[in-house]
């Protein structure tokens, strides 16, 4: 069980060498544990001084620059002091719609801090972070990368400010602030009555690995993380690939803004997730599994460790599972450190190996060459839940749900402009309009399905259905009513992609930043039709040229909203002709001041 150390920030400069050595020993001086080591070392000191990086580098036989390179990749690892209190406001569009920007402004004013900068006394810093997966109970914030606070309002923000000023430890703050509710609004098979622990494993063992694999294939189960690859096929490729051992990875890096279904599955149905992973282990012949838990869900870590221990005690993990000789499998949890790109499976594996989460060149695919070069199957949290059900109830039952091409059910994270945000599970084939009715959405202008990298649907498309063959989704369902400016939505998504670009390839690294620049120009009222043309050009390039899907999808919301909500853009245009990114007349003000002139001839033509 992970020991939670007491943080001492006042002597942040002093290096707790003995504590670092204990961490190094606990991780067997294994450089593949670097991300975990950095995260845990930061929990000791609040940040990562160079001396800490150097000490870890020596302990792992790495160079200091390599360690620095890894630490600098992750948004939640800091190489400068961030204060005894590190406050991060969730910056998804749904948080903004609930007033997060004004609340952050209030907190900064009360605490007298500049966003992104450490307060002079070194006590506190306040900044924004990408969606924390609490859109159904926002506005939300993350504090010290350990705690989440939901349902922020002015009163709560004022009390947070006084608690910080009084130096009260976060553990002593009102417990109800940290309460995360599940908000399950509609349950179908996955969120319904839980399976009895071990039943799916027993059924899988009864079938044997090959028949089990057949059953998963026959169910036509497809991945729930977005790409929709056929699960049985992935497992089969992994089983058939050459390797000394095989690895099962659960992708719980639920970073797509507006998605929080995995949060609820891990909270309420962790046993089902682990059961599905164990079934996968049997099918592919794996002995080792990992859950890659996003850093924002750090607060779930102790709970997940407890569930794993219960399962070991019940012989559902470990050696000879359910008494079957040779069926050995156990699961470790790796906690991410703030990097959306690690949801991409090869980047996730890089991160598991203790490196920068840069997506790999593919092929080879992880099923052939994944974690430490071994065949690895990476599946979404929800996919493992579904696989456990298929193992127990069989393929015919599963494929009786949904549509012929999209079998089973899908869980949606519903947020935004609706009366009942939360988790909704429906069979595939459900109309968008049905979900809108059920969640109490009124006067809806648009729905962003699948998050920023998904698709934006306008009212005339609400008859379309959730299915791989119509509207595929990774689970986000963000609702926007007619009071919303869809340009603001696209602007928020563009900022998200620029913030989360890993920086590896040119088109994504520079392209996402250029998109934000252009949209900022429109916000400043200096846009022209030319700027929209440039946005189109960038979109086309990024769809064609990026190294991974993140960059490719980064312009999806832009493309959709320009196509479907063009007036939202045009109201930001100053003219239909070219406008420079800066105010030429204002640039002349220094010259005017120096020459003491302010007559019309000292101004650009046409400006007063």
């Amino acid at each position: 069980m992970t020991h939670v150390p007491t943080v001492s920030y006042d002597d942040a400069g002093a290096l707790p060498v003995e504590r670092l050595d204990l961490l190094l020993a606990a991780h067997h001086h294994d450089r593949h544990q670097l991300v975990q080591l950095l995260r845990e070392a930061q929990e000791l000191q609040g940040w990562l001084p160079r001396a800490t990086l150097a000490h870890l580098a020596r302990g792992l036989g790495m160079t200091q620059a390599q360690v620095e390179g890894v630490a600098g990749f992750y948004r939640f690892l800091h190489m400068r002091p961030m204060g005894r209190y590190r406050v991060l406001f969730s910056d998804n569009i749904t948080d903004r719609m609930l007033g997060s920007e004004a609340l952050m402004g209030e907190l900064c004013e009360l605490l007298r801090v500049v966003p992104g900068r450490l307060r002079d006394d070194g006590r506190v810093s306040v900044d924004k972070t990408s969606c924390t997966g609490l859109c159904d109970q926002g506005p939300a914030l993350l504090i010290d990368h350990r705690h989440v606070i939901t349902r922020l309002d002015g009163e709560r923000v004022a009390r947070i400010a006084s608690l910080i000023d009084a130096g009260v430890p976060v553990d002593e703050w009102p417990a109800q602030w940290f309460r995360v509710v599940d908000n399950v609004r509609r349950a179908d098979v996955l969120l319904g009555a839980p399976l009895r622990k071990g039943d799916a494993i027993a059924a899988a063992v009864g079938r044997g690995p090959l028949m089990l694999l057949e059953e998963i294939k026959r169910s036509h189960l497809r991945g729930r993380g977005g790409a929709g690859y056929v699960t049985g096929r992935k497992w089969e490729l992994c089983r058939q690939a050459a390797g000394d051992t095989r690895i099962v990875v659960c992708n719980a890096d639920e970073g797509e803004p507006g998605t929080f279904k995995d949060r609820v599955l891990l909270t309420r149905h962790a046993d089902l997730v682990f059961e599905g992973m164990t079934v996968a282990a049997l099918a592919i012949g794996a002995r080792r599994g990992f859950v890659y838990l996003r850093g924002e869900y750090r607060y779930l870590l102790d709970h997940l460790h407890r569930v794993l221990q219960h399962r070991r005690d019940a012989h559902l993990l470990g050696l000879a599972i359910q008494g079957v000789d040779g069926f050995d499998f156990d699961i470790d949890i790796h906690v991410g450190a703030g990097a959306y790109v690690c949801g991409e499976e090869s980047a996730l594996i890089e991160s598991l190996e203790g490196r920068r989460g840069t997506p790999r060149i593919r092929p080879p695919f992880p099923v052939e060459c994944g974690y430490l070069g071994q065949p690895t199957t990476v599946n979404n949290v929800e996919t493992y839940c579904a696989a456990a059900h298929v193992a127990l109830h069989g393929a015919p039952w599963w494929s009786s749900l949904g549509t012929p091409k999209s079998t089973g059910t899908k869980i949606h994270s519903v947020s935004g402009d609706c009366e009942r945000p939360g988790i909704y599970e429906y069979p595939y084939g459900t109309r968008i309009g049905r979900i809108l009715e059920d969640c109490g959405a009124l006067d809806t202008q648009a729905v962003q399905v699948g998050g920023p990298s998904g698709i934006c649907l306008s009212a005339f498309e609400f008859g379309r259905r959730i299915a791989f063959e119509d509207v595929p989704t990774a689970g986000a369902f963000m609702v926007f009513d007619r009071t919303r400016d869809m340009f603001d939505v696209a602007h928020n998504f563009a900022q998200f992609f620029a913030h989360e670009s890993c920086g590896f390839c040119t088109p994504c690294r520079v392209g996402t930043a250029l998109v934000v620049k252009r949209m900022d120009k429109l916000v400043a009222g200096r846009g022209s039709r030319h700027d929209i043309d440039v946005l189109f050009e960038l979109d086309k390039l990024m769809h064609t040229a990026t190294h991974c899907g993140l960059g490719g999808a980064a312009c999806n919301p832009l493309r959709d909203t320009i196509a479907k909500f063009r007036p939202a853009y045009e109201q930001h245009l100053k003219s239909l002709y070219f406008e420079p990114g800066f105010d030429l007349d204002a640039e002349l003000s220094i010259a005017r001041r120096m020459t003491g002139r302010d007559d019309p001839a000292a101004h650009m033509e046409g400006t007063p």
Partner: protein
Amino acid sequence: MKPADVPVPSFTLDGEDVAFQPGDTLLQAARRAGRYIPHLCWHPEFRAHGSCRICIVTVDGRPGAACTVLAAPGLEVKCHTEELHAHRKTLLQMLFVEGNHFCPSCEKSGNCLLQATAYEIGMEGPHFEEFYPDRPVDASHPDILLDFNRCILCELCVRASRDVDGKSVFAIAGHGMGTHLVVNSDSGRLADTDITLADRAASVCPVGVILPKRRGFVVPIGRRRYDEHTAADGATQEAS
């Protein structure tokens, strides 16, 4: 069968056959055949990296980086099309506005692959607004100047120092637009590393980041590599 009878596998590049050896990427095969696929981060001495994306081609209609896609018999590869040239030009413009590139005052001018490729592709201006990042130079080393303003993050120096020199003097840090080259020493300065001018890492930079000191303009402008050749010429497709 005699070896001569074994058909050599090939793919087509813009309609012409290119033979390849097992394990070749499209770029490796094209380079060996003397064909030009524009590239910056790829170098024949090193494993593919795939970050600059200048070598973008279409393979049976689908886009891919020629340096990472494995050659296979019968593939139809297109490289020199109007659309792909437009993309390459935009990628080059992105690299130019991302850093601080002032060719007329750069010692690497004329020997620079970024500059030569921009000429080859016909890039006439930056098109986008410059970012003008603040990147201090590191002049600490007695023999080598580091000017990070021109870095295109190709990681050739990282790879050369690690894989050829066995020193790992360089690494990549940061993320997004903040991604940057770092130097492996306590101080973070080049003077405190064991790099020497003889290292492969000291000569591999395709742009003007890693420069030998006291050699400025020894070869005058007008008589440099890309004054006499182009980035498309068989012998000068790389700068170093």
